[in-house]
């Protein structure tokens, strides 16, 4: 009998709840029972409430079990898990799990399916098709295809990727760079991490395609140091890509060169801002730069540079492989294609949900996410990271697309959605937004550097009931100054969670009795 192929994720989140222990228990318990298994450490399927999720290959397809506990592995094996038999953790065939069936996995097609570092798996599942097609196209044709797909930057700003690439392509220079922003610092986001751990070759392929498109022969991936697993996997993937000739002086024997380097951040949230990241890549303090000039014209080492998020770059190879229309045909209004939503915080079914734009926020939180993990009512939802607005339950009918969110002063950002139940005190969340900004500001702009510190103090006075009216006015003034007079999104958007908390949850700021001075 050939060994049974068993999948246990190597994803950092899966490991954080015991995937390694489950993997070793499987190897041990199978050996004790004289069953031969071949253990594959895959990426995560993104259903974190089911992690560690174990999949067993059967003649009918992969069958899933979860959440598996290392101590229960022996019992599961006795109950016929290696033959796909039903038991209390049996989830049926993986591909038929409704949470997965409802998704449109475009960028995340391979994450959780393959052994992330297997070249054979990658090519067998359509890997390199985008790159091979790009090698037959002119730079103008590649850029035109990306523009036609309607792909917009996945880092948060939603700028059309094709237009950015066109600018770099049109800027004459002997040297150009591709800089991939993998400094995923927003709370509530983990899609970049999962992609780098679950399908790192896709990012490598996307980087090469970007290089071919704009005439750059050198690329950097800037990963945050908080992601040690992603760093290890990405570094191995780059080594393997060099060995296989996907990178180096002649990409796939085409005679065209592309060198790719991995750089690791050092614990600075602001380095997720594109110009601060470029400074950091150049070896300096991560202080933001004034724009213009745009990085597309004068970026890394003052050369034209494509700066894109991990998911933007990773979405390009499948667009080229399957054609722009395959992506453009999905979505709503001017938000085309799919978005990798991340359900996080106090949510029952947390994880990744890749789907076309246009679903409502409520469908994501209540239906897909299953409401809160605590079982209490949802009170607030923060979309788009620490700089995104807090939305009340009455706004759950918002469709998930860039324009609908912008219309109410919120943003989709990176697609991270953090859910809070009714025990949350929104005045403390507003205070935290300022505290976070004070902690992470690069210090270049006064409104952000000092304003955030003053913001914490003013909110403290409001909470304590000291001269509430005057301090509310002061806070609004301060927010306005930060929005108008900060160079980057850190200072410019910190007021967004503060103001939205005040607007939608004023009662939380009004708890203290007016205190005597």
């Amino acid at each position, binding site marked *: 009998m050939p060994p049974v192929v068993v999948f246990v994720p190597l994803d950092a*989140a899966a490991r954080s709840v015991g995937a390694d222990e489950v993997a070793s228990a499987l190897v041990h318990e199978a050996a004790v029972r004289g069953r031969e298994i071949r253990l594959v450490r895959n990426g995560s399927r993104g259903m974190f409430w089911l992690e560690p999720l174990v999949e067993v290959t059967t003649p009918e397809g992969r069958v899933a079990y979860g959440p598996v506990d290392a101590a229960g592995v022996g019992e599961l094996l006795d109950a016929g898990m290696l033959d796909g038999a039903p038991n209390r953790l049996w989830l049926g065939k993986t591909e038929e799990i409704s949470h997965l069936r409802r998704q449109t996995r475009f960028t995340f097609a391979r994450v959780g399916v393959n052994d992330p570092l297997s070249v054979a798996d990658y090519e067998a599942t359509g890997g390199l098709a985008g790159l091979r097609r790009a090698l037959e196209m002119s730079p103008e044709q590649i850029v035109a295809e990306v523009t036609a797909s309607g792909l917009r930057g996945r880092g948060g700003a939603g700028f059309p990727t094709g237009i950015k690439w066109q600018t770099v392509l049109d800027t004459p220079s002997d040297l150009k760079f591709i800089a991939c922003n993998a400094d995923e610092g*927003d*709370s509530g986001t983990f899609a970049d991490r999962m992609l780098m751990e679950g399908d790192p070759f896709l990012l490598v392929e996307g980087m090469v395609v970007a290089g071919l498109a704009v005439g750059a022969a050198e690329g950097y991936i800037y990963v945050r140091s908080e992601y040690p697993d992603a760093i290890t996997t990405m570094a191995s993937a780059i080594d393997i890509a060099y060995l296989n000739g996907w990178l180096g002086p002649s990409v796939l024997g085409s005679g065209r060169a592309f060198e790719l380097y991995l750089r690791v951040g050092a*614990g600075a949230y602001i380095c997720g801002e594109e110009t601060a990241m470029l400074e950091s890549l150049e070896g*300096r303090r991560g202080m933001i730069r004034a724009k213009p000039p745009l990085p597309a014209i004068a970026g890394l080492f003052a050369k034209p540079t494509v700066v894109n998020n991990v998911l933007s770059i990773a979405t390009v190879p499948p667009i080229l492989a399957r054609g722009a229309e395959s992506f453009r045909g999905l979505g709503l209004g001017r938000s085309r294609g799919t978005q990798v939503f991340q359900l996080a915080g*106090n949510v029952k079914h947390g994880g990744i949900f890749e789907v076309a734009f246009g679903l409502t926020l409520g469908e994501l939180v209540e239906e897909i996410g299953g409401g809160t993990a605590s079982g209490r009512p949802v009170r607030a939802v923060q979309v788009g990271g620490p700089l995104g607005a807090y939305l009340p339950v009455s706004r759950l009918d918002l469709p998930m697309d860039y324009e609908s969110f912008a219309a109410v002063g919120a943003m989709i950002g990176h697609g991270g959605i*953090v859910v809070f139940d009714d025990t949350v005190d929104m005045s403390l*969340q507003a205070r935290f937004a300022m505290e976070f900004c004070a902690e992470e500001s690069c210090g270049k702009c006064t409104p952000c550097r000092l304003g955030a510190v003053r913001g914490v103090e003013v909110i403290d006075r409001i909470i304590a009931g000291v001269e509430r009216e005057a301090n509310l006015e002061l806070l609004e003034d301060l927010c306005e100054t930060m929005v108008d007079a900060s160079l980057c999104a850190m200072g410019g958007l910190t007021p967004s969670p503060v103001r939205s908390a005040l607007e939608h949850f004023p009662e939380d700021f009004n708890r203290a009795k007016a205190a005597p001075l």
Partner: protein
Amino acid sequence: MPILHEVQDVFGYIDPSAVDVLAEALNLSRADVYGVVTFYKDFRFEAPGRSVIQVCRGEACQSMGAEQLARHACERLGVDFGGTTPDGAVTLEQVFCLGNCALSPAVMVDGRLKGRVDAACFDQLVARASDEVA
């Protein structure tokens, strides 16, 4: 920065005397190198405890009680964030987001991520970290 990472990986911290050496080798001023070391939270001039425990205080973790966990961590270890226990066993740090937001609250112990950490689980992690290095 790759050089600073390597220095810290090897020695556990960046000795102030290394700043002079690096400045000389890279043809930079000492202020430039010092500025970079002090800008980034990862780099430290002093040796940390034998174990480094990072508690996430991002919004997603807050929604699942990270602030209570953070207070518990400080009380349990008797140090503030950034502090090291007197016996040199554990350095406690705060961090904003470890990318484990669907399994909050998250804690990282010497680069190993842990999810759904409550006070009891935290105490276990501390006990294990202290044992391992003792």
